[in-house]
């Protein structure tokens, strides 16, 4: 059986599983469709949250970014897990006590202002659409590979599937489908990692293998990796090469963005009790950590494997022969990935070998001119393909490759579909029914939800064709927007009794606008390519890249809210009482249905 058939079988089986569970679960509990988390144990809820949370960015993209940058991209690891501490300590229990269903409802009530609610909805829609663009990039990679077409065709096919999946709808609300998705996702991620860790270090636990010994050389794995990459003129893997301030701000942006994104916060609204909201955040992080502790091992080990494949005789020997790439089974993955347009090589100096090295390094330029090399001949290695290509690179059995394809598709689809649902309900429920046309019929509301979904997938697909970055980088921009707009007002809404309606509105708008402008200046206006004035290699404000600006935007939000609130009418007593009551668990009503 060829690999394509195996991949389709695995992806098909996983879909059958989700749909089967959705049908089974729906038959029993039609009524609490919205309150999917109600009465669900914190462990189960944590697993479902983890599936919702870990998207194409975590599954497909992150390890690749770590692999090709090294230590500096530890920011993704710390940022996307550290945010759960903020959620558990600063938001989850209080929002659960408040007892409504959406983030914008809390903001509207706490700041006694329909305008605040409207601004919050707009912030959430902008962050979510940006997030979907990142997912679509991942969808393109996953579908391109498993259907063996170029990534643009993959993206278009994927968009149709995501749309159908989201319209089918209810899937998102069913906790047990997400539990199944989590199981598929984590198995698909860890099994190849275990195989590779065993191959390289003899240790079955990748997180330990990362700090273990490379069996072929007898050196510690990371020391060996540092050696081979510096031999080829690349930055030392474990060293800090980037800017420290940017690294801190980027990590902080991801952390507070995590605590500001609606689809994660919403899960804590529906747990049975306030104390469960605290536990649930912990359990979600347990299941997320299983992937996040493995990801750096996947990245480092893949980088070592790739480097050694291109330099089979050692980094000071002869590079791999073109003939070997074409005929040797161990290099078959290069042919299949070349079809997606995300991997490319070219024998520039016609020596029948492919030299992979850093052509910008001075030391390497010297060696290159001596050896007659004419530049790096691995002309394209898209970071986003690393996780999906990894089992093929390591020559693992066909079923492992099929499993990873199913996991990648699950990760991208579940989050993309979930976000589309969040966007469509924000538009139809909060925006149209809540503001523009309160007397809209239920049918009209449903229709507008579908239209919103279709429009956002078209926008995301169009922008996904020329994405502002790799999947995880685009998603990081979405986190920056959420960090700058939503997190500060949620926190002030709970921990301050003096921030009033005008302060909150001004804060959200200021945070959102400065962050969007900063991002658009670097990534193009509305992410349209070539409309940018700066690049992230040479940002407007010193070392601060557009992905790191969310933390600055959050500060602008806090300061603006404070200044405006201190100069306008104080908060009325009934709202102060509301804040006081949110702070104590006693009196929490059971999760209500909508």
């Amino acid at each position, binding site marked *: 059986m060829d690999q394509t058939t195996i991949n389709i079988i695995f992806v098909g089986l996983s879909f059958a599983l989700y749909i089967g569970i959705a049908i089974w679960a729906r038959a029993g509990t039609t009524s609490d469709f919205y309150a999917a988390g109600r009465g669900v144990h914190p462990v189960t809820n944590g697993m479902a949250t983890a599936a919702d949370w870990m998207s194409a960015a975590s599954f497909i993209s992150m390890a690749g970014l770590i692999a090709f940058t090294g230590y500096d991209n530890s920011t993704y690891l710390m940022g996307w897990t550290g945010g759960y501490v903020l959620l558990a300590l600063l938001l989850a229990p209080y929002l659960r006590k408040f007892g409504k269903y959406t983030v914008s409802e809390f903001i509207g009530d706490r700041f006694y202002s329909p305008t605040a609610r409207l601004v919050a909805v707009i912030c959430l829609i902008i962050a979510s659409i940006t997030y979907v663009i990142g997912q679509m990039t991942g969808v393109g990679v996953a579908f391109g590979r498993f259907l063996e077409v170029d990534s643009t065709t993959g993206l278009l096919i994927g968009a149709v599937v995501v749309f159908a999946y989201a319209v089918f709808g209810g899937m998102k609300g069913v906790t047990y489908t997400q539990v199944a998705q989590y199981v598929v996702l984590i198995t698909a991620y860890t099994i190849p990692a275990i195989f590779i860790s065993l191959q390289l270090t003899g240790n079955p636990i990748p997180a330990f293998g990362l700090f273990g010994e490379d069996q072929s050389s007898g050196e510690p794995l990371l020391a060996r990796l540092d050696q081979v990459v510096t031999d080829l003129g690349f930055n030392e893997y474990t060293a800090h090469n980037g800017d420290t301030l940017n690294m801190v701000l980027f990590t902080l942006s991801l952390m507070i963005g995590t605590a500001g994104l609606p689809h994660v916060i919403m899960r804590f609204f529906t747990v049975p009790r306030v104390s469960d909201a605290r536990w649930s955040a912990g359990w979600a992080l347990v299941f997320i950590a299983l992937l996040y502790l493995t990801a750096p091992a996947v990245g480092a080990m893949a980088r070592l494997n790739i480097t050694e494949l291109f330099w089979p005789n050692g980094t000071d020997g002869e590079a791999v022969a073109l003939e070997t790439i074409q005929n040797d089974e161990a290099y078959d993955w290069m042919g299949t990935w070349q079809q997606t347009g995300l991997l490319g090589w070219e024998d520039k100096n016609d020596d029948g070998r492919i030299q992979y090295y850093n052509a910008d390094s001075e030391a390497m330029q010297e060696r290159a001119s001596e050896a007659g090399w004419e530049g790096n001949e691995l002309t394209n290695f898209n970071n986003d393909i690393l996780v999906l290509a990894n089992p093929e690179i390591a020559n693992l059995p066909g079923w492992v490759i099929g499993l990873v394809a199913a996991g990648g598709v699950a990760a991208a689809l579940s989050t993309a579909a979930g976000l589309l649902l969040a966007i469509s309900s924000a538009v139809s429920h909060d925006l149209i029914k809540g503001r523009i046309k309160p007397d809209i019929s239920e049918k009209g509301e449903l229709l507008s939800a579908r239209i919103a979904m279709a429009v956002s997938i078209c926008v995301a697909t169009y922008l996904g064709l020329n994405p502002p970055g790799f999947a995880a980088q685009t998603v990081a921009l979405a986190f920056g927007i959420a960090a700058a707009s939503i997190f500060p007002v949620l926190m002030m809404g709970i921990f301050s009794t003096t921030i009033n309606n005008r302060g909150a509105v001004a804060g959200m708008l200021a945070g959102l606008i400065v962050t969007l402008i900063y991002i658009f200046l670097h990534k193009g206006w509305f992410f349209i390519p070539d409309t940018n004035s700066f690049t992230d290699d040479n940002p407007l404000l010193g070392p601060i890249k557009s992905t790191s600006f969310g933390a600055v935007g959050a500060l602008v939000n806090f300061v603006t809210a404070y200044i405006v609130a201190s100069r306008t009418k104080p908060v009325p007593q009934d709202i102060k009482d509301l804040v006081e009551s949110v702070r104590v668990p*006693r009196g929490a009503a059971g999760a209500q249905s909508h």
Partner: protein
Amino acid sequence: MTVKEEETHDMTDHSNSQAQRASGGEAYWKANIRLILISLAIWALVSFGFGILLRPLLSGISIGGTDLGFWFAQQGSILVFLILIFFYAWRMNKLDREHGVNEE
């Protein structure tokens, strides 16, 4: 206990909550803020501290071919985050009972 039973409990709690808040509220909130500040100090120390800013100071301690700061950035901080959330949940649920503001 089923969800239904919990809801009945919640209803009776609700009527007492005003009085409870007045007596236990302020000390409870102070204790909570203190716990949050301590937890966040540790949160920042292991990630921004050990993982990034203080990494040069930890460079003497080697682990698996690199230094302790690298380990904190890629593994240690995540493990500490986990411990922090569970510690906070356990401690707060205890505080809830001590101050009589728990849900049951």
